[in-house]
C-alpha cells in the first residue's frame, strides 16, 4: 500500500480496542423494545386481563429469558446488572410483563436449571428460554406466607416416587403455567430443616389450578391457587439434597429483592416521565402548571428518590455480580425503591389531576400496579424487621 510510505499522516496503526458498553447497549435495545412493542399495547393488554403471550414469545425470541444463564446451556450469558436493566425497562412500559419476565428468568427456572437433569432441561428449561413454556414458583400457602418454614404442603416417599399434598396460593402465572416449582415439607414438624423444591408439571394427575383471581393491579399477570391432591412425581423431580430448601432459597433472596427493586425503579420512572410530560403541556390560570412551585416539589421529590433508587439498585447488582450475597443491602434496596415507586405513582396521580382518575390514561395503572411491589420478595414490615434485627445483632 503506497499510502503509508508516501504520506506521513495516514498511518497504519494497530487497530484500537473499541467495543460497545454492554449495559448501555442492553438498555438501548430494551428501551426501544418497550417504546415500540410494550407501551403501544400496554393498556389493551392490561384491560384484557390475560397473559401477554405475543410479547412473552418475542422476549423468548430475543433470548431475554436466558439472561442469568450461561450461553453454552441455552442462556444469554448476562449478569444481574443486565437482568435488572431489562426488568426496569420493561416495567417502565408494563409491570405485569416485567413481573412475568422476571418470574421466568429467576424464580420459575432457577432450581430447574441448577438441579434439574439433562432430560428436564430438554423438556422444560430450553422451551422456557424460548418463551414456549411458562413457569411458576409456589411457596405461599393460605396459612403460611411470610413464614415459609411453616410450609404444610407435604411430600411423602412412595418407593421411587414422591406423593405431594397441599395447597398453594398467590401463584403468579398459575393459570397459564406449564411447570411449577413447589416448596414442600419432606419431614413434617421439622420446620426449615425438611424443606425442598420439586417440579410439578401441569398435566400431573391430582393437580388442580383455580381460575385467575380478580386483583387490584397487574391485571395481565394471572394469579391463582393450586391444589395438590396425591400428586405423584418421580424421584428426579425432587430437586435438592434433603432439607436444603431454605439454604437454596437464601441463595437467590438478594437477587429476588434487587430484581423487585428494579421493577419498582422502572415504574417510578414511568410515573415521573408521565408527570413531566403533563406538567409541560397543561395550562391553568394562563401558565403551564410546571411553573407552579408545588408541582415542582413533586418533580424534585420523585427525581431525587429515583436517583437514589438507581444507585442502590446498581450497587446491589454490582455486588451480586462480584459474588457477594448482599442480604441486608438488598432488603434496604427493595424497601426504599418500592416505597419510592408507590410514592411516585401517588404523586403522578396528583400532578395529572382528574385525568389520572380516568381509565383512559396510564397513570391509574401505575398507581394500581405499584401495590404489586409491596408483597413479593418480603413485605416492607418483614424487611424493616430483618434490616433492624441484622443491624442490632
Amino acid at each position: 500500500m503506497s499510502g503509508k510510505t508516501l504520506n506521513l499522516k495516514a498511518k497504519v496503526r494497530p487497530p484500537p480496542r473499541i467495543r460497545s458498553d454492554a449495559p448501555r447497549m442492553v438498555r438501548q435495545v430494551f428501551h426501544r423494545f418497550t417504546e415500540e412493542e410494550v407501551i403501544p399495547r400496554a393498556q389493551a393488554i392490561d384491560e384484557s386481563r390475560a397473559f401477554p403471550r405475543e410479547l412473552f414469545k418475542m422476549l423468548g425470541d430475543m433470548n431475554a429469558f436466558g439472561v442469568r444463564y450461561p450461553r453454552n446451556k441455552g442462556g444469554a450469558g448476562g449478569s444481574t446488572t443486565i437482568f435488572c436493566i431489562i426488568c426496569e425497562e420493561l416495567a417502565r412500559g408494563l409491570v405485569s410483563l416485567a413481573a412475568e419476565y422476571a418470574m421466568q428468568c429467576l424464580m420459575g427456572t432457577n432450581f430447574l436449571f441448577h438441579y434439574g437433569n439433562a432430560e428436564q432441561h430438554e423438556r422444560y428449561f430450553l422451551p422456557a428460554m424460548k418463551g414456549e413454556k411458562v413457569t411458576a414458583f409456589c411457596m405461599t400457602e393460605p396459612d403460611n406466607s411470610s413464614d415459609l418454614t411453616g410450609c404444610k404442603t407435604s411430600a411423602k416417599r412412595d418407593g421411587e416416587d414422591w406423593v405431594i399434598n397441599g395447597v398453594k396460593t398467590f401463584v403468579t402465572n398459575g393459570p397459564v403455567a406449564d411447570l411449577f416449582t413447589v416448596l414442600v415439607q419432606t419431614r413434617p414438624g421439622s420446620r426449615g430443616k425438611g424443606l425442598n423444591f420439586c417440579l410439578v408439571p401441569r398435566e400431573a394427575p391430582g393437580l388442580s389450578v383455580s381460575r385467575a383471581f380478580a386483583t387490584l393491579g397487574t391485571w395481565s399477570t394471572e394469579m391463582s391457587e393450586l391444589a395438590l391432591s396425591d400428586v405423584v412425581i418421580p424421584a428426579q423431580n425432587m430437586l435438592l439434597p434433603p432439607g436444603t430448601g431454605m439454604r437454596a432459597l437464601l441463595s437467590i433472596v438478594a437477587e429476588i429483592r434487587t430484581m423487585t427493586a428494579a421493577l419498582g425503579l422502572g415504574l417510578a420512572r414511568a410515573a415521573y416521565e408521565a408527570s413531566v410530560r403533563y406538567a409541560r403541556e397543561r395550562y391553568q390560570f394562563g401558565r403551564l402548571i410546571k411553573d407552579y412551585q408545588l408541582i415542582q416539589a413533586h418533580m424534585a421529590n420523585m427525581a431525587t428518590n429515583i436517583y437514589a433508587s438507581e444507585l442502590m439498585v446498581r450497587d446491589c447488582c454490582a455486588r451480586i455480580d462480584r459474588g457477594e450475597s448482599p442480604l441486608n443491602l438488598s432488603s434496604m434496596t427493595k424497601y426504599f425503591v418500592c416505597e419510592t415507586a408507590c410514592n411516585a405513582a401517588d404523586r403522578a396521580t396528583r400532578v395529572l389531576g382528574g385525568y389520572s382518575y380516568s381509565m383512559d390514561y396510564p397513570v391509574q395503572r401505575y398507581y394500581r400496579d405499584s401495590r404489586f411491589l409491596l408483597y413479593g420478595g418480603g413485605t416492607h414490615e418483614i424487611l424493616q424487621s430483618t434490616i433492624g434485627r441484622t443491624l442490632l445483632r
Partner: protein
Amino acid sequence: MRIFVLVKQVPDSTEIKIDPRTGNLLRQGVAAIMNPEDRHALQAAVELAAQVGESSVTVLTMGPPQAIDVLTEALACGADKAVLLTDELFAGADTWSTSGVLARAIQHLGGAHLVLAGRQAIDGDTAQIGPQVAEALGMEQATYVQEIEYLDGELEVERRMGEHLERLCLPLPALVTVVAELNVPGHPRLDLLLLACQDRAPIEILNAADLGFKAQEVGLAGSLTEVVETFSPKSARETEFLEGSPAEMAAALLGRLKAAKLLHKGGLE
C-alpha cells in the same frame, strides 16, 4: 453469497442541531441510533443469507469510534461480521468521499456479490451513498426497493416510485437501497448482543492507511463539495393563547381573524 450491509449511525431525533460556527452537525448529547432504513437492509441481508445458504453478512460503517454501537446491534441482529472504518482523517467527508471510502473497504475485504443499504439517512438525507458506492464498484443498482426476491443467482426487485411500482431483474453483483416497506426487522438477540460487546467479537477496525488512502484523499480534504452555510430554518408560526370566558375568547378569536383578513362579512374567505 457475500453480502455487505452499509449502516450509518444517526442522531435519534429529527431535530438536528448544527454548529453555527462550522456548519457541521453537532453529535454530542444526542442519542445515536442505527439509521432506521438500515435495520430493514440488515434484516433483508440476514434473510437472504439464510435462504441462499453458504453466505456471509458483513456490516460496514464509517464513522467516529462510538459508531461501534450500530455494529454491535447489527451483530445482535444476525450479521456475521462487522467492520468499523474510523480515522480522524475521515472527518468532514461529503457523500463523494464517504462512498469512496465505503467502496474501497468493500474491495479491500474481498468484494461483494450484493450490497444492501438504506435508501436515505435521516440526518444527511441525501440518498446519495448507495448509488455512489454502486458506481464506484461498477455494480448494477436499484434504489427505493420494497421487495427483493432471489432466484438462481439473480435478484428480482420491486421499486417504489411514488405513484407507480417498477419491477426489475438485476444480475449480481448489485447494490440495492431499501425502504421501510421491505420487511419488519426483528429485535436483537440478547446473547449475540452481549457477545458483540466482548473483545472476541468479530469486529474489524480499519483506518485510512489500512485502505491505502493518502491523507489528502479522504475526509474534508478529499471532498468535492464545500458547505457554504448550514442553518435551521426559522419557523414563522406563533402560538397565542386566548383567555377569558368562552364568549370572550370567541369574540377575541373573531377579532384576530378579521385583523388577519381571513374573515369578511361574516364568512371565511
